[in-house]
């Protein structure tokens, strides 16, 4: 076995996995609180990739030279606008459907997913978009021929993801808002009786999920530099796989699932086959659902009769 390939794939997998983890948070929190799969979440991530590129282009048009400043402003803007997307989607397409049939929110979510994809396609064109590479530089271990490298962007992705995750954990565990979220997740009806505005909490969860996806979108765009209106689809399925793998409803599970899936996928494409890496990730989803539907850190669901 080539150790440097293994090392390189582990580095790539960790980077990829952090991204999956960030997006998976949106799926897992929404599922935890209202028990629906938000199919539009992958497309919210896609929107944030476009917003990143637009923001960077606008900043450079205004003559902003400093790369760190541009990135921080872009991240802030992207998170804000994507958050508004999350809020609006919930308000328009999901809230009117509380108490409707079981399928209604799922179909509505698919509708929103199609809307977002086609809206971006019509507004921005179907062509592949990209941004120039802003951060260069690599850390490299090994000799000239066999080496393992981690680019600065990859390092940024890992650090930023863990930072975001730590911040979110603090928010959920230590603040009043977080307590309200957890209470609503446990028993929405009871939380409402105790005076929690559950509609607002659900909206907040959508905003948080969207903002996390926005961080992922910005970071991925900085790393790969290229995207189109369809990137949210496959990434969304994989992030959902990560959420299920970690145990749907569990925040640390989402991150753990994301990183594991990222590592599996990188190792598979490094040592087996690149063409079928999506097929592989999907098989992971089915296998987890068969053998451990509650995931690694999730609690088994008790059916209410």
């Amino acid at each position: 076995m080539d150790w440097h390939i293994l090392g390189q794939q582990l580095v790539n997998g960790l980077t990829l996995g952090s991204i999956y983890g960030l997006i998976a948070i949106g799926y897992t929190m929404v599922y935890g609180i209202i028990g629906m799969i938000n199919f539009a979440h992958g497309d919210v991530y896609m929107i944030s990739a476009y917003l990143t590129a637009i923001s960077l282009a606008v900043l450079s048009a205004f003559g902003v030279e400093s790369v760190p400043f541009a990135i921080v402003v872009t991240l802030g803007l992207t998170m804000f606008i994507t958050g508004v997307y999350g809020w609006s989607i919930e308000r328009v397409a999901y809230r009117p459907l509380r108490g409707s049939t079981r399928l209604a929110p799922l179909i509505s979510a698919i509708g929103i997913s199609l809307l977002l994809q086609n809206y971006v396609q019509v507004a921005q064109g179907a062509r592949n978009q990209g941004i120039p590479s802003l951060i260069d530089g690599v850390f490299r271990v090994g000799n000239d021929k066999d080496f393992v490298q981690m680019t600065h962007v990859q390092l940024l992705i890992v650090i930023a993801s863990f930072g975001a995750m730590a911040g979110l954990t603090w928010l959920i565990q230590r603040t009043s808002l977080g307590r309200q979220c957890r209470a609503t997740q446990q028993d929405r009806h009871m939380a409402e009786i105790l005076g929690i505005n559950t509609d607002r909490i659900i909206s907040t969860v959508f905003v948080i999920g969207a903002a996390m996806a926005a961080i992922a979108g910005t970071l991925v765009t900085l790393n790969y530099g290229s995207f189109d209106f369809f990137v949210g689809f496959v990434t969304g399925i994989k992030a959902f796989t990560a959420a299920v793998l970690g145990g749907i409803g569990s925040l640390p599970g989402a991150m753990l699932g994301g990183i594991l899936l990222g590592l599996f996928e990188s190792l598979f494409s490094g040592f087996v086959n690149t063409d079928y890496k999506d097929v592989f990730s999907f098989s992971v989803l089915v296998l987890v659902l068969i053998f451990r539907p509650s995931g690694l850190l999730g609690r088994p669901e008790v059916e209410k009769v």
Partner: protein
Amino acid sequence: MDPRNLLEVRNLTMRFGGIVANNDVSFDVAQGSITALIGPNGAGKTTVFNCLTGFYRASEGTIHLAGDQGCAPLEVGGLLSKPLIGGSYLVARAGIARTFQNIRLFREMSVVENLLVAQHNHLDRNLLSGALGLRRYRQAERDGIERAFHWLRVMDLEEDANRLAGELPYGRQRRLEIARAMCTGPRLVCLDEPAAGLNPREKADLAERIQHLRNEHRVTVLLIEHDMSLVMGISEHIVVLDHGEVIAAGDPQEVKNSPAVITAYLGADDDEEGAA
């Protein structure tokens, strides 16, 4: 297993995570009896029901149902954990039917359709014979419709046959749910709070119908009920649960006079509470 019993529950314990819903519950249901399961709210009655009818797999203990026509007894938990094909539906096929505390009818289907769905396993399910309208299929359908109308007559619902189940008045929905359970041809029918939300006249009517089911249609009845006059009036055997454990069992008179039951329902004196 005692041949006089239809159901024997032994040492049933049910835990959800750290919470013990039922601890070491044992009781019998005699063939052809009306047995009641009573207890204060949160005593674990519905959990016992869900274990009996195969919706929960008990953490410990056994539930044996007497075999049909001399067959060996069946263990309910074993039906659930059968590899690949196991599931609560096998319990229903073994002869335990049930109703639900919060009525679960097929609300957007007609009353007759509700009863036909209950006979799913007795009808001709072959798609081909249905599509071609073979005689065997038509005969099975006709029998099914007849049986459905038979039970509608028994439960006095015949004029509602072609209405949507969801639009029936509450009391009639309760009766329809019992009729639907009977359509599966059960040996034991478990009624979860059948009188909840009924007015006194409807309650009296229901009591009569439950006795009729047992006397005329030879089905054993197990019911959870809060209405004491109904329970004391119709059941021969009463099992009292409190905090997930059996605190008393016996005929209505015994249970009525049991100090443990009085304590559970009316509350204990302060010093006794402290001792417990």
